[in-house]
C-alpha cells in the first residue's frame, strides 16, 4: 500500500497554507510532518481525510480497497479526543468501535493496550488529559485500518504512555500499516522520515 501526494496546495481563509507539496508513504513507513505553528501540519492531515478541501494537486492510494475513500481506510486522531464526558470509558470506545468498524469488536484488548482496562466503567469526565488521549488512541487499536493520521499524538502523554504508543505504532507498521504524524518533537520511532513544512510568505 502506498499513499502518495503530488503538488498539494491548501488555501484557508484566503491564505495559502502550503503549496507544491509532494510526498509518498508506503506500507511500513512513518512520515513525521514538522514545521512551526501555522505551517499547515494539521491542515495537511485534515486535507487527506477530506475535512479541508484540496485546492490543487492529487492524493492517491495504491493497493487499498478501491471501493473506499482514503478517509474510510484511515484513522484520524485530531487535537480533540472525540469523547463524551457522560459516557464511561468502555461506552465511549464501544461507540467508536461500532461506528468506525464493520462488525461488533471486543474492546477490551484495545483498552488493555492503552492501559485503561481498570477504568473501563469510569465516566470519561473523570479522566485526565493524558488518559483521554489514550482512550482516543484505543479506537485505532480496536478498529483495524491501514492508514494512521496522527495530529500531535504524544502531546499530554507521559513517558511511559509515549513508549506504549511507540510500541503500538511499531506493531501497526509491522502489520503493513503506514503512519503520518504531525509533531513538534519526536514520536519515538527511529525509522521516521521527516517532511518539513515551511511557512509560505508571499
Amino acid at each position, binding site marked *: 500500500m502506498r499513499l502518495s501526494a503530488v503538488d498539494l496546495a491548501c488555501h484557508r481563509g484566503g491564505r495559502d497554507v502550503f503549496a507544491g507539496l509532494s510526498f509518498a508513504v508506503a506500507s511500513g513507513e512513518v512520515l513525521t510532518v514538522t514545521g512551526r505553528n501555522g505551517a499547515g501540519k494539521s491542515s495537511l492531515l*485534515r486535507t487527506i*481525510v*477530506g*475535512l*479541508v*478541501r484540496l485546492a490543487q494537486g492529487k492524493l492517491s492510494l495504491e493497493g487499498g480497497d478501491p471501493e*473506499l475513500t482514503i*478517509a*474510510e481506510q484511515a484513522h*484520524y486522531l*485530531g*487535537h*480533540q*479526543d*472525540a*469523547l*463524551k*464526558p*457522560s*459516557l464511561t470509558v468502555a*461506552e465511549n470506545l*464501544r*461507540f*467508536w468501535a*461500532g*461506528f*468506525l*468498524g*464493520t*462488525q*461488533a469488536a471486543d474492546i477490551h484488548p484495545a483498552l488493555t493496550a492503552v492501559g485503561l482496562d481498570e477504568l473501563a466503567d469510569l465516566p470519561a469526565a473523570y479522566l485526565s488529559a493524558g488518559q483521554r488521549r489514550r482512550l482516543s488512541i484505543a479506537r485505532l487499536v480496536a478498529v483495524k485500518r491501514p492508514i494512521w493520521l496522527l495530529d500531535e499524538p504524544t502531546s499530554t502523554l507521559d513517558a511511559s504512555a509515549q513508549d506504549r504508543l511507540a510500541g503500538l505504532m511499531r506493531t501497526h507498521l509491522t502489520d503493513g500499516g503506514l503512519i503520518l504524524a504531525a509533531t513538534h518533537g519526536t514520536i519515538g520511532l527511529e525509522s521516521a522520515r521527516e517532511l518539513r513544512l515551511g511557512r509560505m510568505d508571499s
Partner: protein
Amino acid sequence: MTALTAILIRDMRIAVRVGGGALIGVLFFLVVVTLIPFAVGPNLPLLKQIGPAILWLAALLASLLALDRLFAADHEDGSLDLILTGRAPLEFVVATKGLAHWLTTGLPLVIAAPLIGLLLNLDAPAEITLVLTLLVGTPALTFIGLIGAAIAVTLRRGGLLLAVIVLPLTVPVLIFGVAAANTVGPVPFGTPFTILCALTLASLVVGPFAAAAALRQEME
C-alpha cells in the same frame, strides 16, 4: 448498520444521563402548561378552548430546547470530524440522531400530554385527538429542527439563532396540528390530520438531507 445503531444508542444514553436534554424538555413542557391556568384564570370553557393550542405551543418550544446541542456538542469535542469522514452516509447519520432526539425528548412530551391536559380541562375525546396529533406532529418539529441545528453548529450561542431559523418553518405544522387537535372548532379532524401526516413525512425526508448539506458546508 452497526454505525447507525451505535449512534442511536450513544445519543439516547447521553440524553438520559446527567446534563442530557431528555428530562429538561418534559419539565419545561410541564412548567409552561401549568403556568397557563394561573395566567388565564379559572375560566374552564376558555381553558378547554385554548388547551390544544397551548399544549402544542409548549411542545414546540420544549422540543427546540435541547436541539442546539445536537450537532454543536459533537462539533466541539471533535466527534463530528470522524462522523463526517465515516463510512455511514451523513444523511442517515443525521436522521438517526434526529430519531434518537425524538425518542428522548419528543416521545416523553406525547406521554406527558394527557396528564397535563387535565389541568386545561380537556375531556377524554380531546385528550385522545391531542395525543394523536402530537405523536404524528412532534417528529416533524424535530426533523425541521435538525436543519437549524446543523446551520447553527459552529456558533457559540447557536440556540438563539436556532429558534429564529426553526420557528417560522414550523408554522404549517403548528397550524394543522392545532386544527386537528381542536375538537371544539368548525374544522373536522380528518383533513388537517392528513395534512399534518404529510408534513411530517415530508420533513422526515427533507430534514436529514438539508441538515447534512448544511453540515458539509459549515465544516469547510
